[in-house]
């Protein structure tokens, strides 16, 4: 800020020394942020080194998780993470955009503000509380549906169980429950979809509000209906920004831990039906790290953490570049 002063003004000596100290302290503390980042990579890399040495990149592409034979490959967990996250996005993005449009375009102010607050509170609900609710309120419902599917098609059920037991599946069986416990892939996707809703919704709301009024007015002046204004003028304009929000939500979904760990069934197997118990990388860390023996098992679990770290850095950088590009200067 000194450059805003005319050149010839000389500050007293004492003050410049104070400035030096202040600057050093502030920069020193800020460097803790950089240090955290570097230390994370170093420590995660060091702790997972035995697994990296033993399995290399094959760690991510083999499907085995066997503490008895000391073989660890994370394919089923990588698949679990990707499938739950993308399906949750597929469900939540249209709803999030709908709520953003409602708040920004439809609702009168007295309604828009409370709805906006509710969406923000949804983001504040802790992961464990979502998990607890899914476990006690949703799980019994899912179990009812599974039991109904089980008993209403006895022939298909028998056929599918044989297939499942020989580690196969077919299209009709893909919608049949594997074990009617209520827990599994679909319940995890459901709770995940609810959890990531507010992240897309609030970004989408903000970028829709940033769409210039000219855009709307020009469209209305042509005689367009409200929906035509939204679909032809507003959404195309806000598209890139909404995409940033979607990717932010994706980052959340990939790393979401306890709510998923509580309802997914925690079985390191690739899903054979939408109801199958499976696991994600994050849920596996939560479940196994505490009990893992020192050595290869613990290193493999930390290897999952290192993978998640890099994935989330990558996803965040993409979201950041999109949002930065979208935000007008000075905002």
């Amino acid at each position: 800020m000194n450059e805003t002063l005319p050149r010839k003004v000389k500050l007293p000596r004492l003050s410049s020394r104070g400035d030096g100290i202040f600057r050093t302290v502030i920069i020193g503390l800020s460097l803790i942020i950089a240090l955290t980042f570097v230390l994370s990579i170093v420590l995660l890399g060091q702790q997972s080194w035995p697994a990296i040495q033993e399995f290399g990149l094959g760690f991510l592409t083999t499907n085995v998780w066997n503490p008895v034979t000391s073989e660890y490959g994370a394919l089923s967990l990588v698949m679990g993470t990707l499938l739950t996250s993308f399906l949750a996005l597929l469900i939540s993005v249209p709803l999030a955009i709908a709520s953003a449009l409602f708040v920004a375009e439809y609702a009168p102010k007295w309604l828009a503000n409370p709805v906006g607050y509710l969406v923000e509170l949804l983001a504040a609900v802790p992961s464990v509380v979502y998990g607890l609710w899914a476990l006690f309120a949703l799980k019994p419902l899912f179990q009812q549906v599974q039991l109904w599917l089980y008993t209403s098609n006895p022939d298909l059920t028998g056929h599918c169980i044989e297939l499942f037991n020989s580690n196969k599946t077919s299209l009709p069986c893909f919608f049949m429950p594997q074990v009617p416990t209520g827990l599994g892939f679909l319940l995890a996707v459901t709770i995940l979809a609810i959890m990531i809703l507010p992240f897309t919704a609030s970004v989408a709301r903000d970028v829709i509000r940033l769409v210039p009024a000219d855009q709307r007015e020009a469209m209305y002046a042509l005689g367009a209906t409200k929906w035509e204004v939204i679909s032809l003028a507003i959404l195309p304009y806000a598209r890139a920004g909404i995409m940033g929000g979607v990717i932010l939500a994706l980052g959340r979904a990939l790393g979401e831990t306890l709510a998923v760990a509580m309802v997914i069934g925690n079985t390191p197997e690739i899903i054979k039906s939408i109801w199958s118990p499976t696991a994600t990388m994050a849920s596996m860390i939560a479940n196994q790290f505490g009990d893992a023996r020192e050595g290869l098992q613990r290193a493999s679990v930390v290897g999952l953490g290192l993978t998640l770290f890099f994935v989330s850095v990558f996803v965040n950088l993409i979201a950041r570049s999109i949002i930065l590009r979208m935000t007008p200067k000075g905002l």
Partner: protein
Amino acid sequence: MAVSHLTPQLTRGGLSRGRKSKNALMGVMIGLGTALVVAPLILIFGFLLIKGVGALNLDFFLKNPAPEGEAGGGWANAITGSLLILAMAAVLGVVVGVAGGIFLAEFPRHRLMPTIRMLSDVLSGIPAIVMGLVVYALVVKPMGHFSAMAGGIALGLLMVPIVVRTTEEVLKLVPLSVREAGLALGLPQWKVILSIVLPAASGGIITGLMLALARVAGEAAPLLFTAFGSNLVNLNPLQPTSALPLQIYIGATSAYDENQRLAQAGALLLITLIFVTSLLARFANRPRR
């Protein structure tokens, strides 16, 4: 498509039935979609209120958990543990977070500025459980045992990026002329920042801190391998300690009815505290927006 359809008769003719009904249909869909978004929040809060409020009695706040399978007991260990861990997290989050925010807002030409801002952004996306693994390797392993301090560090590091961002944003809202006025009086830059700019932005900074605290107060994943949990009230930062979200996780996945009942009460308490904090922070900061 709509435009070409419009050109022939711009006056009077009104909208075709198809366009009218499509417009109405999409309006209804958007309303329904919004209802679906808001519904879980109401369902969750209602569920916890019905199931949990009965167990929120004096015992809940004053007693430690009863032995497995026995009735009674409370969560004094978790409540005090949460306070202890959050206090440590807040110190770390405030010191590093506010300093980082000052650096980004007040030294915009420093060559490290873009790097620090990018790393802070990236850190805000790191899954909480991964931060737990990092702090396990950083603090728990060298110490040889779990501790409240390790939990506080994990949560504090999760707070930092949130505090950095809000601090930077509110500092930038303080007009440049205020800084220039201070400098013109002959004050050194550090004094201008600490005694003019920071106080002017304090409302916004406090809001950011409260939101960050509310965020990490509900995190259980990073505490699993750091604070670990304890069935007794522990106020020693170097010993394992329980916390509300951690105890909810343990209780909800427990096989005993009593633990599940307390977990629902604990979840009600936690979610209420978080909501109140978030709303207070929002409303306190309202005139600024």
